[in-house]
């Protein structure tokens, strides 16, 4: 299962449609403070099914939609599409390319798609089950997690163990 690209549109600071190719083995993401790097990571978490707004640094889901600047009005929806090559047949799908998409509208409605076919959030979670990828897996690592593991906050070590086994 190889990552191929990530498309972000209307999610947090990504007002305009942005496509990043993640097809190399090791890809670096750089830029000044506040330019949007962690927002890219939040978008990956979110499209994989993250429901806890706290893990997306937001108080409510509505805050994930681009909220406008002096020069631009806010967006009415946020969309993220993560595309994979199903090269090791890890994803239970007959397709060679799998595109997972999530959209949230200002109205509060959500849309989920696999290869452009509407589905439910749990279909996306089911797709990734057993791959080690989930929105809260040990595969997305940041400094706060490093510290939580050291403090064993809320028995996090145990929880990560159970996820990996």
């Amino acid at each position, binding site marked *: *299962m*190889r*990552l191929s690209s990530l498309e972000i549109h209307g999610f*947090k*600071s*990504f*007002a*305009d449609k*942005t*496509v*990043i*190719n*993640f097809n*190399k*083995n*090791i*890809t*670096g*993401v*750089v*830029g*000044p403070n*506040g*330019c*949007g*790097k*962690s*927002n*890219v*990571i939040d978008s*990956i978490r979110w499209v994989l099914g993250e429901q806890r707004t706290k893990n997306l640094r937001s108080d409510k889901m509505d805050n994930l939609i681009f909220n406008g*600047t*002096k*020069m*631009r009005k806010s967006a009415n929806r946020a969309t993220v599409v993560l595309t*994979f090559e199903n090269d090791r047949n*890890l994803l239970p799908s007959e397709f060679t390319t799998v595109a997972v998409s999530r959209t949230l509208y200002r109205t509060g409605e959500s849309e989920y798609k696999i290869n452009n076919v509407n589905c439910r959030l749990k279909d996306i979670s089911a797709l990734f089950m057993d*791959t*080690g*990828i989930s929105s809260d*897996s*040990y*595969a*997305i*690592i*940041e*400094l706060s*997690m*490093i*510290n939580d*593991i*050291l403090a*064993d906050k809320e*028995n996090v*070590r*145990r929880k*990560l*163990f159970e996820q*990996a*086994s």
Partner: protein
Amino acid sequence: ATEKFMEAFNKVKDNFKYVFKRLFSEEDVCDLFLTDPDNPLESKVEITAKPKGKRPLTINQLSGGEKALTSISLIFSLYLLKPAPFCVLDEVDAPLDDANVGKFNNIIKQFSENSQFIIVTHKKETMVHVEAIYGVTMAEPGISKVVPVEFASLN
């Protein structure tokens, strides 16, 4: 279920020792154990880490960078149990000195044979180890934009 857990636990323990020695050195010692071995499914997981020559009573006595490296070792040892197809790291190299950034990036290079890595960083020492770089910018205030970066422009 207990047997299954203990089998996974012991594998992770071995992975932990392997990764820890790669990030620290061969003479550094660490261990992973259950606070309540008779009750494995409920027990908390405890970590000990002793960089060579030092005798810290708990991991809390270690330095900021040593703690980060120890925590990273545990996360990577779980990763090795069941390698995820991709891993995303957000400024995890921030507390590390140059030598440790090098070791960190070397072990990622090794793991990248099996998984893809996306690494967010501010450190040039990390940027020189990746295969492609995307720069995120905010030329228009509040609006993020992504551009591929040529390696030559980093120097």
